[in-house]
């Protein structure tokens, strides 16, 4: 009898891969975005399964709630909601597929061939531990990257505004 968590893992994996694949081959952009949404939700499910609830929560809030919405927004802004996309050039698609498969083969073989030795203790991801890690000052805490990321986000925000802003010249 298979372990139930294993069955759940395979189911979730299949879901992620199928929706992910649909994301990259769907001819309609909006549907593509929806498939991406499901794929990301599936990844969140995987995190739950791995008992990393915080990561799952972040995944849903930021990716599903933020980035995918942003993408859908931009689809509407560029007026392509229902339009079907032009097919890629055949050569490019074949070459791209070959490159992707070759890469997958190389990396997959490597990953499968290596004998991993998991550590048998439990992975403690309590909120307080994560909090200490992110903004604490003790050993192994990441307060400096945390601050840097906040600066990065500010810079990105300003950059977006500057790039997307209509220039005066255009308004006239």
């Amino acid at each position, binding site marked *: 009898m298979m372990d139930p968590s294993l069955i759940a893992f395979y189911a979730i994996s299949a879901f992620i891969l199928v929706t992910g694949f649909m994301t990259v081959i769907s001819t309609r952009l909006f549907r593509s975005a929806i498939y991406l949404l499901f794929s990301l939700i599936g990844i969140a499910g995987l995190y739950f399964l791995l008992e990393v609830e915080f990561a799952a929560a972040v995944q849903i809030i930021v990716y599903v709630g933020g980035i995918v919405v942003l993408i859908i927004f931009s689809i509407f802004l560029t007026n392509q909601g229902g339009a079907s996309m032009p097919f890629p050039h055949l050569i*490019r698609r074949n*070459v*791209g597929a070959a*490159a992707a498969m*070759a*890469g997958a083969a*190389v990396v997959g073989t*490597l990953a499968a061939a290596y004998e991993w030795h998991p550590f048998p203790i439990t992975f403690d991801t309590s909120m307080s531990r994560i909090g200490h890690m992110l903004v604490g000052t003790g050993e192994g805490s990441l307060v400096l990257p945390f601050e840097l990321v906040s600066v990065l986000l500010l810079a990105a925000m300003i950059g977006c505004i500057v790039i997307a802003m209509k220039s005066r010249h255009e308004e006239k």
Partner: protein
Amino acid sequence: MPSLNNLLLILLLPFCSFLLLGLAGRKRLSPLAGILGTTSLFISALLSVHSAWTYFSSTSSHKPEVAWSMNWLQFSDSLSIDMGVLVDPISMMMLVVVTVVSFMVHLYSLGYMKGDERFTTYYAYLSLFTFSMLGLVVSVNLFQIYMFWELVGVSSFLLIGFYYDKPSAVSASKKAFIVTRFADLGFLIGILILGHGAETLDFNTLIARLTDPSSPWLGALSAGSFLGASALTWGLLLVFMGGAGKSAMFPLHIWLPDAMEGPTPVSALIHAATMVVAGVYLVARLFPVFAIACPVALDVVLWTGIISSVFAALIACAQTDIKRVLAYSTMSQIGYMMFALGLSGYGGEAGLGYTASLFHLFTHAFFKALLFLGAGAVIHMVHSNEIKDMGGLRKRMPVTHLAFLIGCLAIAGIPPFAGFFSKEEILTAAYAANPVIYWIALITAGLTAFYMFRLYYLIFWSRESGVSNAHPVDEHHGEGTISMKLPLLLLSVGAVIAGLVPFGNYVSSDGTPLHIHLHIGDAVLPVLIALTGIGIATYFYKTESSKPAKLMQSMRVFYMTLHNKFYIDEIYLFITKNIVFPLIGRPAAWFDKFVIDGTVIAIGRTTDRIAETVRVMQTGRVQDYALFFIASLITLAVFAIYLFH
């Protein structure tokens, strides 16, 4: 022993003056440039006279001493190159000669070069030359002397080509540079041979190692044989080749007459008194090696000297350019010094030739500089170098006339002028060594007297009315300023009294005083011959007449040969044009153009073509770049993991 500070100051003053004038002074210091250069040289000259005085009056026996030395380049334990100051009789003597003549020329140039737009540059070059020449004479090793040797070559090149808008000056400077460079190539190879064989470049060590018959270095150098001569002979001959090039010895003399294109004071300094005697100095510096270890090389020096001497004297009789006459006379006198060295032995009475040679160098510097400066005054006045534009100038230029006359008497060897004593010593040495040489030297002395007085009469007498109409005299110039007359007077004094210096007490081949006794009887014949030369010149040239033209007609072929300098230039031209260019130059040019350039061009073209091909990969489409990136990444990963792990 003179103080080291003084010695270094003598060297550094001209150098600082060069730096200041050459780098900073182009515009700002222009009015001061001459004063500055002259003052620094004046101090230098005083210091050298003082140093020489202390040196020569302190001890009686003079061995070379290194007063100061700095390890400059250390290549290995056995090979290092030092920079230093060598103190010995000849270097002290040369310090005095160089600084005094250079000071005179600096002073003279104040008037002569006045108003020239590159006045500052001129003084910078003069200072550079003086510094290089001083560095040359105090060199402690072969490499240092080579460096300064090249530096004087460069300054000579710069000064010959000073009027660079004159094509003749440009080609003359190129000629001087190429000919002396060619000779210096030999010098360099000679240095390498000697340095390799003796395992040192230092003069004192080198001389010590190569004059001791039992030393292993001498044995190794003289053992082998290449084209019939040992390595030592070849080394010394090649070193002498460098000296011959610089000293305009036959057959490398062709640059010297052309070098007269430079300003006349420069000719006085560089091409009469100092730089051209560097070859003599070089041979004198290595004299023990020549005399003891390799008499064959010394014979070459002897014959080169005597041939150059008589050869140049003959040519000088038929030249019509005042400076060229002087140039050939310089060459002839240097030939005198060379053969005096060549016939000398080492030590004791046999070393008379050595002393005589350097004595002649000493006196010659004074009277030849005097003659050149006098010629410069004449040229300044009539604006021409051609003798035919001159004549009857003695009343217009009394000071110059007197100075020139003293110079002519000195060079002709009439007692009691300086040239008499030194020439007499040389002739005595020659008489003792080799009668053939003695007779050739005597004839040369007669020729010298003849052509010098020919020049003298043609300039100052001949035509009474004075100057031809083509070149009217610039009355405003007169004889030139006081700064031009003063050096003439001072040098005249030098040309009179320089011969009275008891030179043998100070300079001799082995460092011990040599007492020279001149016998009146020995001197009669040379003086008579000189007087004969003067007499012939007086007969032909004192008053304007058709006598010279008739003489010229009667010996037309001979005259033309002399006038065209034995066609040596033409022979060189023939050789270069018909042999060197087609047989070496053209193939080399072909090789350069098609093989070397061709390779380079082919590399460039290939790069271009590859780039042209690769360019299309730059599609501008981001996905193509991503594809290349990923494909390369995978390939590299596969290689790294499966092939090289």
